[in-house]
């Protein structure tokens, strides 16, 4: 089975008794590990889908679905036939019915008026009969001939107001309410105009002047402002999402695949191996974030273009602003990757890793939501808080605000956070109790070991 060695053995000696001086050190070692991790990650279908495919296709598909859904719902609403019962004072009912029938006859008649449903009932009876029967109701109650909305009209001589009854948990009843409100509004305006005419008053007496509002902000800047409200939050979401699978894959996944000990045997320091893993994870997180932002911007622009003049702003993809934001985004991706890699390393399988990182994501997402609160602006104080600082900084960059000191503070704080996260990651994942296949540790156990000084590192970290 195995071929016997032919002549020509030992064409050269690779190594005798000392390590090669060419062995990679420092950044070169980190680069080799990162390149290998990246290569293996990009061969994993789940990582490719999550970090590359999803960011490219998610928003175009999502926005297309929103648009199609909107059109379908709109069309369905317009074609739905609803029934409105007119009850109360008979003359008023007759008058309103005659007027509305004429109006409704002009277009496709999807609103039916009826006057035979509890014409003289009091309010309580109307409420009780309009309400949908409970699940336990009889067959007769279910098939009861109920309208979708009821308009109760008072006697013209009384001070009572007209009342519209709908069942707000039923969409058809809501629709009937909307259409009735439109008809009532038109009827009110007609009555007002007629009364004004009788008194010799014109439109200009009823509405002495109009107010129109004008914004001096260019359509493009309005678009940039709107993008600045949600784009920074998406950066945080996507960095976390992009780092999620690679972080689990390179730590817990490695233990599950039985290659953790192989990695421990690499002729490199543990620190360099872990830095290589974090670098690879953060590269994938960065790629996912940039792809996501690019395709979200393109899709949003297309959506706004499709909606046309209904939208009072235009969306231009903020290439320049995002270019300025890239260093902060890269630092943030590195920080997120280090934290997620450290946490995923506490677990022993992919499943456990995912369960650990699921709640951990909230530690990034909640501050990101705080960061998009209206009125919040980047200041030196906010720049001291990781996650919030990157959201506010990107927000400010998108609207082209020049805040040198807060930007610099944000960058420094992100650098410090990333450094601390890397130290934490190296400290945790160098522990013997975590390094081998099948080893995991709860956070409680970890703190107990650290407190008792029972945390022994693997070799020299």
């Amino acid at each position, binding site marked *: 089975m195995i071929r016997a*060695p032919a002549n020509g053995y030992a064409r050269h*000696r690779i190594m005798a008794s000392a390590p090669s001086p060419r062995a990679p050190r420092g950044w070169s070692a980190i680069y080799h590990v990162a390149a290998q991790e990246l290569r293996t990650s990009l061969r994993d279908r789940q990582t490719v889908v999550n970090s590359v495919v999803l960011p490219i296709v998610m928003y175009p598909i999502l926005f297309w679905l929103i648009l199609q859904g909107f059109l379908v719902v709109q069309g369905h609403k317009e074609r739905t036939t609803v029934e409105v019962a007119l009850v109360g004072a008979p003359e008023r009912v007759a008058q309103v019915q005659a007027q509305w029938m004429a109006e409704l006859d002009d277009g496709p008649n999807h609103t039916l008026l009826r006057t035979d449903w509890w014409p003289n009932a009091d309010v309580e009876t109307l409420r009780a009969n309009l309400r949908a029967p409970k699940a336990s109701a009889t067959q007769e109650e279910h098939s009861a001939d109920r309208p979708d909305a009821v308009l109760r009209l008072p006697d013209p001589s009384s001070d009572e107001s007209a009342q519209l009854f709908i069942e707000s948990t039923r969409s058809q009843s809501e629709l009937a309410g909307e259409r009735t409100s439109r008809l009532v509004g038109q009827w009110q305006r007609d009555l007002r105009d007629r009364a004004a005419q009788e008194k010799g008053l014109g439109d200009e007496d009823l509405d002495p002047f109009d107010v129109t509002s004008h914004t001096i902000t260019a359509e493009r800047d309005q678009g940039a402002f709107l993008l600045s409200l949600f784009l920074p939050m998406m950066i945080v979401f996507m960095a976390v999402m992009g780092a999620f699978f690679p972080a689990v894959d390179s730590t817990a996944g490695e233990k599950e695949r039985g290659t953790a000990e192989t990695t421990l045997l690499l002729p490199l320091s543990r620190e360099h191996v872990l830095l290589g893993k974090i670098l690879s994870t953060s590269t994938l997180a960065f790629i996912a974030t940039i792809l996501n932002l690019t395709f979200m911007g393109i899709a949003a622009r297309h959506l706004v273009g499709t909606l046309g003049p209904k939208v009072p702003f235009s969306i231009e993809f903020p290439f320049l602003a995002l270019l300025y934001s890239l260093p902060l985004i890269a630092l943030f991706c590195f920080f997120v990757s280090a934290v997620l890699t450290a946490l995923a390393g506490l677990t022993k399988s992919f499943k456990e890793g995912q369960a650990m990182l699921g709640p951990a994501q909230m530690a990034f997402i909640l501050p990101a939501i705080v960061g998009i609160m209206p009125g919040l602006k980047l200041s030196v104080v906010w720049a001291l808080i990781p996650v919030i600082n990157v959201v506010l900084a990107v927000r400010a960059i998108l609207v082209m605000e020049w805040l040198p000191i807060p930007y610099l503070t944000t960058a420094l704080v992100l650098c410090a956070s990333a450094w601390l996260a890397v130290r934490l990651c190296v400290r945790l994942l160098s522990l013997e109790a975590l390094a081998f296949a099948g080893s995991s540790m709860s956070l409680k156990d970890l703190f107990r070991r650290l407190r008792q000084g029972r945390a022994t590192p693997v*070799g020299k970290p």
Partner: protein
Amino acid sequence: MQDPQSHAPAAAPADRPAIEATGLVKTFFDPERGEVQAVRGLDLRCEYGEIFGLLGPNGAGKTTTLRMLAGILVPTDGHASIAGVDAARDPMGVRQRIGFLSGSTGLYPRLTARETLRYFGQLHGIAKGPLEERIEELVEVFQLHEFADGRCEALSTGQKQRVNIARAVVHDPEVLILDEPTTGLDIMAASDMIDFIESRRSSGRCVLFSTHILSEAERLCDRIGVVDHGRTLAVGTLQELRAETGQEWLGDVFKELVQRAAQESAPAS
């Protein structure tokens, strides 16, 4: 299955052993059980050109000992060195000088066999040209041609074992440490592994391997160290162990040593 490099005699330094361990102790902390002593003062000395077998039952502390020698576990006490390099002080230096193979050193499933060899070769500092030649050499000798460019995840157990051996010797280490290398292998793959271990001795390299398969130890080892409960019970050639215990078969030798150790420790406890 013989490594071509192993035919090039290594410059075996006469002044120091290939592996030396004295009073090696390893204590683990288990949150449930407290302190667990896996290795309790183990002594070991392996020379260049020697195959040394570490024989012991499951749980005897063999794997822990080998991991300490490989620089991936830090001894709680005692001293271990590989080719004169202290395993606790310079674990990276140790890893540069050894080849290590065990049941838990799996191959990266999404790399090909060739990429695996290239990766390890690069990290051991082999220059590009010689590395490519070395990879071709290993592909030839370990007959990896048919699957050298396929992902490791698609290989059979025997094929994976061959790639793993090639991975362990890509840098031609002077010391090879193997933890139960034939466990889980079929007859052919186990036979290949035994051939390979034998091939390392002739060039003056040292092989330390753990096993609980007595026939393997009998066939391969120049010297055998019997360990149980983290301690060395006896070290010597097969003949020396036979003479010491008065038993013919290695199985009986092993049982005799374990029983003696149990009797000795009984009054003390």
